[in-house]
């Protein structure tokens, strides 16, 4: 793994919310086209680690480099530009509650000045895939929990970003739907996108393993470890 090629690179990263240290001495490199799962008990810091990766948090020690650039050195506009290359599925999916679902999914296009109409075909296809075509004009508060998660995933991938970070993207959907979502992520991964998914769902990880070469990272005792093949 050559340094220059890593999309996201954490080097001796430590993080603390103010109390004791939550993460310490974490180092990973995500190379383009890799597919990682991130596991660990609830409250161990998975969401925190993902936030470090897309710059919502800055490490208290160590360095985070995304696309070769140190996060600490970016100004706010550069950070915005970086976000357009990273698709994020938040654990608590949030939307603009006053815009219909289709507009919400197309929001990354809107804010980056690209015409949503132009990519209308993609949008429709994507909504079809995540099973939300019939809800296109619903407002986000009218969606079920699983529908929200699917919408968040669709919004994360609509710009076809280089990296996809998903935090528990299948916690609220049934098994069949989670297979569909996994398939979408696997397809994107095969197109060269880097994927990092935080999940508790061991069955999902197992299913992914059968389709693509997957690495499983586990947070234990504030450290990040590569989980063995025992899963």
């Amino acid at each position, binding site marked *: 793994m050559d340094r220059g090629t890593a999309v996201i690179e954490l080097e001796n990263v430590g993080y603390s919310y103010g109390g004791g240290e939550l993460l310490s001495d974490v180092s990973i490199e995500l190379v383009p086209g890799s597919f990682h799962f991130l596991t660990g008990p609830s409250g161990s810091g998975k969401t925190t680690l993902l936030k470090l990766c897309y*710059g*919502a948090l800055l490490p208290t020690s160590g360095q985070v480099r995304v696309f070769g650039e140190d996060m600490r050195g970016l100004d*706010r*506009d550069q950070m*915005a530009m970086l976000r*357009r290359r990273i698709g994020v599925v938040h654990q608590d999916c949030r939307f*603009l*509650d006053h815009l219909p679902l289709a507009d919400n999914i197309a*929001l990354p296009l809107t*804010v980056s000045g690209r015409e949503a109409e132009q990519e209308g075909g993609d949008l429709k296809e994507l909504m079809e895939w995540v099973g939300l075509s019939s809800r296109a004009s619903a407002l986000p508060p009218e969606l079920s929990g699983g529908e929200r998660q699917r919408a968040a995933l669709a919004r994360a991938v609509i710009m076809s970003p280089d990296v996809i970070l998903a935090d528990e993207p299948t916690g609220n959907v049934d098994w069949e739907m989670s297979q569909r979502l996994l398939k979408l992520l696997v397809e994107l991964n095969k197109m060269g996108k880097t994927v990092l998914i935080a999940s508790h769902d061991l069955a999902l990880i197992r299913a992914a393993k059968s389709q693509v070469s997957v690495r499983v990272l586990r947070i234990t005792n504030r450290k990040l470890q590569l989980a063995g093949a025992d899963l």
Partner: protein
Amino acid sequence: MSRGAIRSLFLGDPQAARVVPPSGFTAHLTLFVSGAMAFLTVFALALSLASGRLADRWAEELARSATLRITAPMDQRAAQTEAALKILRQTPGVASARALTKEEQAALLAPWFGADLQIEDLPVPQLIEVIDTDPGYDAAGLRLRLSAEVPGAVLDDHTRWRRPLVDAARSLRRLGWIAILLIGGATAAMITLAANAALSANAQVIEVLRLVGARDRYIAQAFVRRFTLRAFGGAVIGVAFGLAGVLLLPSASDEGGFLTGLGFQGLDWLWPMLIPLLGGGVAFAATWLAAHRALKGLS
């Protein structure tokens, strides 16, 4: 704030405008605050301008501030008048002095003796109008000199009576401007608070936008634009109602003094037009600051 940002504020980006929820109570609040305060400002402005005009008029009249009264036997009167005028002309601080004509004296006495008064029949004193310069003359010194040289002269200084009225009109004008400042300050504070309230109510919108890669300017602009237009629109409506209200007040009349003349005259009409611009400006600045403060909390 760059020029480009200001330009696009007014040209508008329909896409950016959509990302902010269209309405809600803080929206109505902004519109209403701006309108109501503009309305009140119009009245305070009318009051200030009217009392300003009054103070000016009274101050001007105050300039003709003193009368010299010469009571003397008919045969000495002309001589004493001449002497008094000579002294007055020499007195520093007196701009001009002039003996009133018979007709003027008759007009002044008309309320007492009727308009058909034959002033020659009466032992009426000769009156001299004294107009002083701004710092004024030394009344005590003048009296001393007059008593020596013109025994029949009495200096009647009106200043004592009129000065407080002018002061009063000036203090009413000051009150009006203080009211305008207070209303303006209160409006600015309320619009700022309303903008902040709206932004904190929309924290999720800002967070989502930032998450999907929107730049600060894009986010700030959507809010700034909306609030500026709202405050401006509200103020326009408020000013319109205010002007209508001022027009409906009883109009100025010569007899009624200033009080009924609570209106705008001539170029005064331009003042109320400033209100919406100021309101919009305050909203612009307040929202811009609030938006940037809100954004700073997010990475």
